[in-house]
């Protein structure tokens, strides 16, 4: 135990040193990030609080929706945390220089494992704590819960995030020990399995039952029934849902479900500790001893095709873009999550016509569904530009001198990163928005508007991610998950979400007034649409120009 305490103490000391250093050296940066984070938190809180008030108007069904939503929220969160913990843990347990260093010290492998997964747990779960807390606090206020609710909220959340971290850690240990040369195969198979589960889920909720009915309560109940898998009593997501819901009133069930969750956390903790004690060092040695023997041709087919497509770029910029694409695609752990999420969105959009509870021939539903689809696509895009584009400059790391010393201007390096980000974002986002609009059969004007909004969102998000990446690079870290968990990553996510939400909100006002509330006529609607589109375009151009100017200034100042 003393060595585990010494490890945690050193990590805490390092964190405190870093925090005080940031507060001392970058007061403005810390203030801007803190204020932006508080504003974003407040916006999410208000959104959820207003949604809960809206749901209350449906009385019985409103409460059921909250229960199902909470169950689904924790179910999806649990799965995502297991995936991200498994990926982060693998890299942190087997690929980091810190793990190698710790193995040279007289610290048992089980303790190194516990120490390392604690770090991964914090890296993978901060987003849940930041984005999930507004909803859960809004729930407590909505139900006028007492202080015990908030106490249970903290206890349940703390124990709940431990479970996926332990499961992810166990998965990493087993893969490294028993399949050390099959990491890519395991990853691809896992993606396939998760994808299939997702496809089953999407097809289940969009299954046509030979009728097209309007949004009625019985239809909603039927719909919710299909989400009942998240309420399965053997799932930890069910335990936390029941425990938290009980805490909103008399908390009679909360102690039982909390202890149930805690007992599993302790059991998995013991199991993973013992497994790590047995297999971690062996697995480390096996992974370190595995080599990649594949030969890559000096100039591949991909290089030739990319060179033709990217002909509009200067030769140096083209080379940087091709290098970035190759680097990204040769590491499946980097893009696998993107594939799952965008793949599932595609399947969902293709099947959207089959959702039996909404009438897509009604203008209101066409507008609502296509707008929500746009929001879902671009929200996913915002998380991925933060995840993949923001760390691009940081990932150059100490190798930045290679491109820094090239006989090209640094602004070309910046623009090549920007082009890489923008093309990727457009290739993913616009076809999805088109599929959604086509399937929902929106009028062509609305489709073009959605595509236009998608395009300028891509433009803004790419410029924000590249520029913040240049403004706040972290050249000392080679793990992207850790890079995005720092100040810069948080700022990038917060700015991206604020930008995106601003565009979607302004863009939705005319449609909301016309289709949903029916307060304006078609002429006023058209005028408001033009005004909102002009406003959005103006805002997007300003944001893009400011971001790019900041980025260009900063890249000139980068010193390694």
């Amino acid at each position, binding site marked *: 135990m003393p060595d585990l305490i010494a490890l945690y103490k050193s990590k805490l000391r390092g964190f405190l040193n870093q925090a005080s250093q940031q507060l001392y050296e970058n007061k403005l940066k810390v203030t801007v990030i803190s204020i932006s984070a508080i504003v974003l938190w407040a916006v999410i809180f208000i959104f959820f609080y207003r949604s809960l008030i809206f749901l209350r108007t449906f009385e019985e069904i409103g409460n059921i929706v909250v229960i199902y939503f909470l169950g689904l929220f924790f179910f999806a969160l649990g799965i995502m945390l297991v995936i991200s913990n498994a990926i982060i843990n693998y890299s942190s347990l087997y690929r980091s*220089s810190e793990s190698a*260093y710790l193995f040279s010290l007289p610290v048992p492998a089980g303790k190194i494992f516990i120490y390392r997964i604690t770090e991964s747990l914090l890296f993978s779960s901060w987003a849940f704590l930041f984005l999930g807390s507004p909803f859960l606090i809004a729930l407590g206020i909505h139900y006028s819960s007492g202080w015990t609710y908030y106490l249970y909220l903290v206890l349940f959340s703390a124990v709940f995030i431990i479970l996926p971290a332990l499961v992810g850690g166990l998965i990493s240990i087993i893969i490294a020990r028993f399949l050390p040369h099959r990491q890519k195969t395991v990853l691809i198979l896992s993606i396939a399995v998760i994808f299939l589960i997702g496809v089953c889920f999407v097809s289940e909720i969009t299954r046509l039952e030979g009728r097209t009915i309007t949004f009625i309560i019985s239809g909603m109940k039927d719909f919710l029934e299909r989400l009942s898998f998240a309420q399965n009593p053997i799932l930890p997501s069910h335990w936390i849902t029941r425990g938290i819901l009980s805490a909103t009133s008399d908390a009679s069930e909360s102690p039982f479900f909390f202890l149930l969750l805690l007992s599993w956390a302790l059991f998995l903790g013991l199991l993973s500790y013992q497994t790590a004690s047995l297999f971690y060092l062996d697995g480390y040695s096996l992974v370190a001893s595995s080599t990649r023997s594949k030969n890559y041709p000096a100039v591949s087919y991909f290089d030739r095709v990319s060179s033709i497509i990217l002909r509009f770029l200067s030769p140096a910029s083209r080379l940087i873009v091709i290098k970035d694409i190759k680097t990204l695609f040769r590491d499946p752990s980097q893009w696998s999550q993107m594939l799952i999420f965008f793949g599932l969105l595609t399947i969902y959009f293709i099947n959207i016509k089959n959702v039996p509870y909404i009438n897509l021939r009604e203008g209101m539903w066409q507008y609502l569904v296509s707008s929500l689809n746009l929001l879902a696509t671009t929200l996913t895009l915002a998380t991925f530009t933060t995840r993949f584009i923001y760390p691009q400059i940081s990932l150059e790391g100490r190798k930045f001198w290679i491109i820094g010393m090239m006989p090209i201007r640094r602004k070309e390096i910046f623009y090549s990163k920007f082009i890489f980000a923008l093309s990727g974002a457009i290739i993913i986002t616009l076809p999805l928005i088109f599929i959604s609009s086509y399937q929902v059969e929106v009028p062509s004007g609305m489709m073009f508007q959605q595509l236009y909004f998608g395009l300028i969102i891509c433009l803004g998000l790419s410029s924000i991610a590249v520029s913040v990446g240049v403004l706040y690079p972290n050249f000392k870290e080679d793990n992207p998950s850790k890079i995005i968990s720092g100040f810069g990553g948080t700022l990038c996510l917060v700015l991206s979400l604020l930008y995106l939400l601003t565009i979607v909100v302004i863009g939705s006002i005319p449609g909301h007034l016309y289709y949903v509330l029916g307060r304006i006529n078609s002429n006023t609607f058209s005028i408001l649409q033009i005004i909102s589109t002009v406003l959005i375009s103006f805002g997007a151009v300003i944001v893009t120009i400011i971001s790019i100017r900041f980025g260009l200034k900063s890249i000139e100042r980068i010193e390694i």
Partner: protein
Amino acid sequence: MLELKEVTKYYGNKLAVERLTLHIPDGTLFAFIGPNGAGKTTTVKMLAGLLKPSSGEIIINGKNIINNSLEIKKIISYIPDQPFLYEKLSGKEFLNFIGQIYHLPEETLESQIARYVELFQMSEYIHQLIESYSLGMKQKLVIASSLLHHPRLLIVDEPLVGLDPANVRIVKQLFRQLVKEGITIFMSTHILSIAEEIADMIGVIHQGRLIAQGSFSQLKSLKKTSPSGGNLEDVFLLLCEECQT
């Protein structure tokens, strides 16, 4: 102190170290030299317990490293070629951390830290964050941290990289002093002049195989390089050339 018996290591299908056998007695400075990719770092990592041999045995202080890794790690120290440091800790905090990991009593730890801070002239910056250190400053800190617990075996991979001439001399003298105190040092290096100057025994590894070992004079007698006898570089290059042919 250190014994390797027929140690072999594969990376996938690639043979990195082949049937390496060594016996290094207590209080010996053993220099391990070889060209790039010869298997030096792999051997060092196996000695430090980071890699397991594909076959063969590594015995440290009479115990097999595979079965007694934790016990052995308490009496050895490993300095890698690219040492890891907690950049957001100060040098003093890092040394305290290492002392706590090795369960050193507070008084011993303080006196040891004071000794090495003075020896390596680190007092000016020991309370600053490690991230602000130069390569040489970091290297001195790593060497100091590795000696805090009085290891019986010191395994070092390129220990003098980044050090200025004054500190190179300090480290050379320190290593000789440690050897006099009975500590065994296994040093992998590319700097042949250092190996020639301070090593008691030298092992030459080439393409995973130990091609020669002994004191410098023994190695010199193996290969007649020039009328004056030549230096370790001449001997080393001749040995490697012979192996290639």
